[in-house]
């Protein structure tokens, strides 16, 4: 039985090589045909399972500890089936490749584990990292659900974890440099409350200047959006009070005419559009993180309901978004990243990512990339790979990353300097142009002379 099993494995491997250059579907058909046979033999493969090269490291970069000393093994997890997860993986692999090519400090080995966007699988990934792969640190993660789910396991495993996918404030809740949560860091995206504060500032200072006066909110009915929308509701009418003076008292509040929600699976927003339009909104702030944003943008662009649209639309950051939606004039930010000179690393990162993977990176691709760098730098500074030393060194992080100057606060949450516009990704807004290109319009320092243009069907005073 054992031999038969190995034979089939060998055959599939050959078959996969054979089909590599062929059309994707042909390969998939061939593979599909072997599924039944494989699963029947799967039980026999058990003993060989751990001996054979771990399939999850199939994509690892620079595995051999060439030259200097120990290999720094970092576990990275995310849902491989969706773009955010792919970017987590590829951002990490790109960082490892670059670091290993440079050859300074320890060699980096990435062990990727597919979390399938399920909390259950994510926890299993952490266990596997700790028990089987014996990694020295962890990064990645995609949604708040899976990131929050693994935190306890991370604390038990006592491995430094640099989170790179979840914006929920709870990720760093109760974290400090001495408690059991000290292993947890977040390098991106920015805490959703900070995002909200930034949106509030942009609306009250920039959009009012463009002539908008009545604002509505249309948000996904999701846990990540809830504190954000709550904050906006308090901040928009009264920015200075809500931000405890961070926004100066001279900035006036704006009129918020209504708040509407939609489910993460919605395909029809006409009821919400009508409600907001009837209330007189001339600018609608959108907040959504799933693919629902595509439908929203598309329907807004088609129906031209008479108000401008902008805000957080995560799918709106992807390369293919405009082709489907034709959402001319949609304002997108502040969670995204755009190929612009945010820091000296941003454009090189975009170009390297595009060269390697033929697509634009998303925010968590950049965050994981920065996360691997931050871990590596900490290890190089410390000259050791044990968890406690790494944590101490990570706390000292002060580096220029893709998203700006990155430091951790006492809660191990990433902060950007408030005074330096180039320091923070959170301050970046781009607008879709008629030709589909993305032009940064805020902040002006990065806008390169581009200005906000009213979308078709919207007239500004």
């Amino acid at each position, binding site marked *: 039985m054992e031999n038969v099993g190995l034979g089939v494995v060998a055959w599939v491997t050959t078959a996969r090589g054979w089909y590599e250059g062929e059309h994707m*579907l042909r390969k*998939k058909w061939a593979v*599909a045909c072997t599924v039944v046979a494989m699963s029947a033999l799967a039980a026999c493969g058990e003993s060989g399972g751990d001996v054979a090269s771990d399939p999850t490291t199939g994509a690892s970069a620079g595995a051999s500890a060439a030259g200097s000393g120990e290999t720094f093994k970092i576990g990275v997890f995310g849902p491989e*089936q*969706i*773009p955010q997860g792919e970017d987590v993986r590829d951002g990490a692999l790109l960082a490892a490749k670059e670091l290993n090519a440079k050859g300074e400090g320890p060699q980096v080995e990435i062990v990727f584990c597919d979390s399938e966007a399920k909390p259950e699988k994510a926890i299993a990934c952490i266990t596997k990292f700790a028990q089987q792969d014996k990694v020295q640190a962890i990064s990645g993660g995609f949604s708040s659900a899976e990131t929050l789910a693994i935190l306890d396991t991370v604390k038990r495993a006592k491995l430094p974890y640099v989170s790179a996918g979840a914006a929920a404030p709870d990720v760093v809740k109760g974290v400090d440099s001495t408690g059991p949560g000290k292993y947890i860091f977040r390098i991106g995206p920015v805490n959703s409350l900070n995002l909200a504060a930034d949106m509030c500032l942009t609306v009250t200072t920039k959009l009012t200047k463009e002539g908008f006066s009545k604002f509505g909110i249309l948000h996904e*009915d999701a846990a990540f959006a809830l504190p954000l929308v709550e904050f906006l509701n308090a901040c928009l009418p009264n920015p200075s009070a809500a931000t405890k003076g961070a926004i100066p008292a001279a900035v006036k509040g704006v009129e918020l005419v209504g708040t*509407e*929600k*939609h*489910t993460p*699976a*919605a*395909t*029809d927003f*006409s*009821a*919400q559009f*009508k*409600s907001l339009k009837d209330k007189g909104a001339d600018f609608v702030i959108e907040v959504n993180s799933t*693919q629902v944003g*595509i*439908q929203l943008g*598309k*329907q807004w662009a*088609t*129906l*031209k*309901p008479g108000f401008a649209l902008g805000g957080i639309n995560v799918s709106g950051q992807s390369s293919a978004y405009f082709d*489907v939606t034709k959402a001319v004039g949609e304002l997108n930010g502040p969670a995204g990243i755009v190929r612009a000179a945010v820091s000296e690393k941003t454009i090189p990162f975009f170009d390297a990512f595009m060269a390697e993977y033929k697509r634009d990176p998303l925010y968590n691709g950049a965050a994981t990339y920065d996360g691997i760098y931050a871990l590596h730098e900490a290890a190089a500074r410390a000259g050791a790979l044990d968890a406690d030393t790494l944590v101490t060194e990570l706390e000292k992080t002060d580096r220029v990353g893709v998203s700006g100057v990155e430091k951790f606060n006492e809660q191990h949450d990433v902060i950007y300097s408030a005074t330096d516009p180039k320091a923070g990704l959170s301050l970046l807004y781009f607008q879709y142009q008629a030709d589909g290109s993305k032009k940064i319009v805020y902040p002006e320092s990065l806008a390169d002379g581009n200005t906000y243009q009213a979308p078709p069907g919207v007239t500004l005073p």
Partner: protein
Amino acid sequence: MDVLVQGALTSAVIALVALGFSLVYGVGGIVNLAHGSFFMIGAYSAYAMSETGAPLLVSAVVGVLAATLAGVLLERLVITPIRHQEVAVLIATLAVAILVQSGVQFFYGGLERQLPGFVSGAVTVFGVTLQQTRVLAGLVALVTIVTVLLVLTRTPTGRMVRAVAQDEEASRLIGVRPERVTLYVLAIGAGLAGLAGVLTAPYGVLTPTMWLLPLTQAFAIVILGGLGSIPGTVLASVVVGFLDRFVAFNVKDGDIKVGLVTVAVILATLVLRPQGFLGKVAR
């Protein structure tokens, strides 16, 4: 007005899915939990064709044919061997639905896909601005439903189908082969669901889990209208379609609550009148 126009369009499309589900139950006594998969197969096949550069009309036709073929295969390979075991049919067709989901995810990934529409842009009907793709889908669905109803009531084939639905044994006596009729009806029902998939794809999204919603919707409608009752199915589609839009437009955060309202209606119907609005006395 929004509710009326949108409700009508929504109703027509969901009736298209529910009709096939109801026919299959009426004729074969089969509750086919893979019915939503035909919807998905229709949408994805059309998408696959359009990706190869085929004209949209060809893609749409291929989508409908693929769903029909899937219906035939399901009947022959899975349902026929276990036809008289109600629970086994439920579970096996459910397994088929999951298998199809897994297959679609394998070939096209979990990512949402988009099928271009025959038309784009907006149109204003009775003062309501709508996406043209929605209007087209609603109209095509309406015409198809009327055609199917006419075929059922006015043609010999239709009468044969209704005879089997009423009394399988009696129809056997007058020379009808219920097995054959079941096959036809499953194929046609699958085709109708596939058509609905093709029609809604341009304004909906294609995902590997898109089969579940139309299935539960059709299921609910058919139970509301009475399992196996065609007029009941149409009536219930209208009720569900309008209810959906009414709640969405008139209740605060209606979009979120619409599902709960639907569940409440289903449960109330099941408890108070299990045979549905127009159904025969429960079997």
